[in-house]
């Protein structure tokens, strides 16, 4: 999950047209049979991210609920609540849609969806409020693993099954306090972005990094992966500038400053797609059509730029919809008392001009919008 901090809308845009309605249908179309994540997702990729306690990841492709299991869950008439860190982006939207679709098939009612707007204290309030509705399952992504821990612990002690996205609160134990953590392969996505960068620069040049200046597990992993990969694998590429952002609207200012200070910059990595759009605007303004931008998350605007062979050359994408399905499946495991792996990851997806339309379909379970299709022609 590219659950960025502070007010950002990270990510994969354009899902709305997709996400809210049609993806749900996709799930309903296969209303019987076992529940798994999208079988089209390639499974041969090694998952590079490590879990919050250093666990090696189990691929989400291995998760499954059989038809009998689903029917058994249905009998329970369970209730679930989704407690988000932030609901204002397509990553969240797609994830919630995936969850809702899978829960629907399992006969589980989603009684509340909350948005903490990146405020840990709000999230604690949300957990308390949601507990008033007595849910059996809470699927959640902690804003901050430290300060929300006690609230989650309270929920766990009350017997609620907890499934986490991306990160687990500190001090809670897998298998005891919570079921499992399902993550996108953020580290892998960072590596993908580095590789595309290296490829486009011919293994040589000067690059800048726009990172998320906050103690946030997910975005830290990405930047770390990008920088480590560049340093270790591509010694001729030098990271000459680093600039932090706290909000997505800052992307343009930071990128402009970088280009002012380093007019000879060849590429910029931006930690997620929304600030990357700002970097794009900065590059356009500076007349730097030759710049290479890589980022993470397949948003509409960056997809359009990739499709039209523009400044954004490629990115690593997450698969939030399927991540949601994986989480729902794991919740099912817990309800059934089935052993669940502590750390599950959904593989990273490399997106470039060549595969942008297919990638879109994979991520959002529907065809890319017309504008992108036109651009790709």
């Amino acid at each position, binding site marked *: 999950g590219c659950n960025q901090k502070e007010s950002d809308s990270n990510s994969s845009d354009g899902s709305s047209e997709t996400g809210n309605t049609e993806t749900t249908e996709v799930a309903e179309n296969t209303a019987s049979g076992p529940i798994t994540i999208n079988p089209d997702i390639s499974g041969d990729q090694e998952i590079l991210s490590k879990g919050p306690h250093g666990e090696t990841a189990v691929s989400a492709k291995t998760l499954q609920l059989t038809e009998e299991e689903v029917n058994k869950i249905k009998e329970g008439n369970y209730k679930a609540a989704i407690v988000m860190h932030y609901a204002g982006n397509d990553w969240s939207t797609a994830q919630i849609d995936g969850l809702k679709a899978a829960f629907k098939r399992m006969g589980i009612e989603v009684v509340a*969806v909350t*948005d903490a707007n990146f*405020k840990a204290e709000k999230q604690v309030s949300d957990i308390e*409020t949601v507990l008033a509705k007595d849910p059996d399952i809470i699927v959640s992504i902690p804003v901050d693993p430290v300060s929300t*821990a006690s609230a989650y612990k309270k929920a766990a002690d009350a017997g609620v099954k907890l499934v986490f996205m991306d990160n687990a609160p500190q001090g809670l134990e897998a298998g005891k306090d919570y079921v499992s953590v399902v993550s996108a392969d953020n580290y892998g996505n960072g590596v993908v972005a580095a590789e595309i960068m290296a490829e486009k620069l011919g293994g040589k040049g000067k690059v800048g990094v726009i990172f998320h200046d906050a103690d946030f597990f997910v975005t830290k992993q990405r930047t770390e992966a990008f920088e480590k990969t560049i340093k270790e694998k591509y010694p001729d590429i030098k990271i000459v500038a680093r600039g932090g952002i706290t909000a997505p609207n800052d992307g343009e200012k930071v990128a402009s400053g970088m280009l002012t200070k380093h007019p000879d910059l060849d590429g910029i990595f931006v930690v997620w797609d929304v600030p990357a759009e700002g970097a794009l605007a900065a590059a356009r303004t500076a007349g730097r059509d030759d710049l290479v931008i890589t980022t993470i998350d397949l948003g509409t605007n960056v997809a359009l730029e990739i499709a039209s062979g523009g400044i954004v050359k490629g990115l690593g994408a997450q698969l939030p919809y399927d991540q949601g399905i994986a989480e729902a499946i794991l919740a099912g495991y817990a309800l059934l008392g089935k052993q669940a792996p502590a750390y599950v990851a959904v593989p990273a997806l490399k997106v470039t001009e060549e595969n942008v339309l297919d990638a879109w379909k994979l991520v959002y379970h529907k065809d890319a919008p017309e504008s992108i299709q036109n651009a790709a022609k």
Partner: protein
Amino acid sequence: MPSKVQNNLSPAKRLKAFDWRNYIVYIAFVGVIIYFSITLHDEGFLTTSNLLNIARQTAMISIMGVAMTFVISTGEIDLSVGSITALASLTAALALQAGLGLFGGIAAGLGTGLAIGIINGLLITKVAIPSFLVTLGMMGIVKGLAMWITGTAPVPIVHSTFNFLFGSGDIGSIPILLIWTLIITIIGHIILKKTAFGRQTLATGGNEMAAKFSGVKTSKIKFLVFVGSGLMAGFAGMLYAGRMHAGRYTFGEGDELSVIAAVILGGTSLFGGVGTVIGTVIGSLMIGTINNGLIIMGLDVSQQMIVKGLIIILAVAFGRKTLKK
């Protein structure tokens, strides 16, 4: 503040204004409670535990609101409170981590608020910079410090007495946060309405010049209300820390606006001279209740925002109509 002001409403209008502003928030609050009690009575809204949750969730806003009522009553504004809570939560947590004990933690949290409040107060009264600019600048400085002090990392607090006393504990079934809110509200109310200091605070906001002519040390009053605001923000920071068992630089983010909204909704005039502590706390509770009810109702975030905005406007508009008659 170089641009202090005096009331110039037509006498008739002011009289009316005074009226409805005194009661509207109570009416609106009761209306909101009744509405949710009816629509959400199957969904646990009216359970004791949910109502106590609302009290917990609004405690920090209410407590900062009490102090902000004084600031706004003098016709000034304090935008730095949100940042102060963040820094205070961290300094308290760091002090506890460093083994300075309960009192070390309390001293660090309150001291942070106090120090910033003093600086604000001095800049506003001695250097005479408008409070909006001073506290806006301070908001950035303090937030930056909070980020910098631990490099944005949160600091866990394992001191269970601290956590109990400041946020997490219950006495019987009464959350300690509710007790703190009540104590601060009562003290604030008494100071504003029953002491010379409170009277002089309102006089300073009502007409600074006239107050000065009457022997009110308006600079001292203004200084003190900013110190109070800083101190209460520091206290709120400790409550966040105790409630979350950690200090973190994002605590209280955006709280300045919620606090000011609670104060204005409560009936205190943004132009000074009129203030009510009880109104502020009711305003804070009302916002908290709306937040809680809409989540229980299961609305989308976007719907929640729309409905919340509508309720605030309509509640005031409706109250305005009712009281006009």
